[in-house]
């Protein structure tokens, strides 16, 4: 799981009031901590929007050189502005915007679900619902393949769905996939749904906590690709899909985990009135 994506999504209740980075050896130095808190309070007074506020492209977040533009933000003159629609996240001096929508951009290390769309001499073209197609070269598949003897469509055929790892993203946007990891596989059976890629971190949860909870409580096999494709198999897959759609819609809600737990207990998303 891509640590960066997880880290960005610090909206869990436990993380409310994220502490300011108080510098080296902060834990022991109470005075330094107090000084840092006063500093931050002073700086935060300049902020034009609060943590978790809804912001739009071009919206000014602060007029101050004390802050740094993080993800989905940019600096112009003395100001820092949002690039996308999303929720403001303040971590110390870094302002980031957690996006509410957006197409998936491939990142090295991501596990993605894709559809084989073409078979070429030395590999397969995989559609991962990104602005760029991914390529799975023969060298990315475990085991030795003798292309003189093997018809590689027998390994992966057009229309089949695979779960692989992005192991290369070049500057010119060549994307390579490998199937070496133990968890990589081709799916047989089950079904696939698409979710908003910006909501994937919420669906997965911190260290997979959210999706693991859902899998356990419903006894359903679920694999979530970072690129917004989700594979499911199990008797209660329709219910699991309802739960995932609920998380998508209420992703910014406080206490979402509790709400999902309640839903999993009662077995239906909305109570029948």
């Amino acid at each position, binding site marked *: 799981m891509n640590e960066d994506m997880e880290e960005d999504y610090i909206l869990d209740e436990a993380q409310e009031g994220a502490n300011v980075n108080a510098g080296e050896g902060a834990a022991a130095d109470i005075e330094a901590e107090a000084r840092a808190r006063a500093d931050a309070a002073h700086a935060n007074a300049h902020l034009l929007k609060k943590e978790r506020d809804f912001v739009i492209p071009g919206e000014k977040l602060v007029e101050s050189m004390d802050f740094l533009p993080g993800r989905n933000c940019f600096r112009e003159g003395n100001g820092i502005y949002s690039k996308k629609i999303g929720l403001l996240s303040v971590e110390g001096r870094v302002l980031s915007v957690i996006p509410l929508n957006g197409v998936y951009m491939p990142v090295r290390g991501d596990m993605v679900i894709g*559809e084989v769309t073409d078979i070429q001499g030395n590999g397969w073209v995989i559609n991962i619902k990104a602005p760029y197609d991914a390529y799975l070269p023969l060298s990315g598949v475990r085991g030795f393949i003798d292309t003189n003897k093997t018809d590689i469509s027998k390994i992966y055929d057009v229309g089949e*769905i695979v779960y692989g790892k992005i192991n290369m993203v070049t500057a010119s946007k060549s994307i390579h996939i490998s199937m070496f990891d133990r968890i990589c596989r081709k799916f047989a059976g089950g079904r696939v749904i698409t979710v908003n890629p910006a909501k994937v971190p919420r669906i997965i949860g911190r260290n997979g906590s959210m999706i693991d909870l859902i899998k356990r409580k419903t006894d359903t096999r679920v694999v979530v690709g970072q690129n917004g494709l989700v594979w499911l198999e199990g008797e209660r897959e329709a219910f699991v899909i309802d739960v995932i759609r609920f998380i998508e819609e209420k992703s910014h809600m406080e206490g979402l985990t509790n709400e999902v737990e309640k839903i999993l207990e009662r077995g239906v998303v909305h109570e029948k009135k």
Partner: protein
Amino acid sequence: MMIQNNFITKLASSNKRIDGRLFDQVRKIVVDDKIIEKAEGAALVKLGNTQVIAGVKLEVGEPFPDKPNDGVLMTSAEFSPISSPDFEQGPPRENSIELARIVDRGIRECGAIDTKKLCIEDGKKVWMVCIDINILDNFGNLIDASAMASAVALNQCVFPKYEDGKVIATEKTKKKLPVLYTAVACTFAKIGNHMLLDPNLEEEEASSCRLTLSTRDDGNLCAIQKGGTGHLSSADVEHALDVAVERGKEIRKLLK
């Protein structure tokens, strides 16, 4: 996607559909007949997530030589690129010309419009009814949604002012277009051995062929079209006929 096609086919063999509907159940229909006013008649129809808008414009022109005293009906369809990510990338699943012609035949063959009353001057001037269909969001079964939008647009259509041989398009009269019947199309997708009414996008993808049946208010069939490369049995067709006539009645009530 093969996985989806297999999943849908497997569900069908247990009499289930991917969105939980029954085989002869239509998705939720929402009609907005007040969306625009410049057209002589117009309607936006939502069939599930499929969205289609149809507009009717009335113009004056020459009749066809073989029908000198009849008004003219013309139906066109445009698949707007906003409706699907597939625009200009590979072959379209449905042809906009086929769609327009199917909708047109449904209206024309059932005699929905009293074309004799559209004659202004024998052999020289008649009213031309131009239906334009614009697909806004494709989630399957564009044919039925387009037919519904066209029917509502026709039913509310009024004549523009006509003075001294010229149409004054900016002024509308209260006189309604002479509409006798409401044509309703019911399209079925064949999946496995079953005929599924009102296929959504994924069901269309998984199906081998489709059958469209247009019915009139009296329950008669006015237009039929089989599309796609698969094949149908007589039982398939007979079953579809029964469902189309019954559903047609219910949909017609909704559209009025």
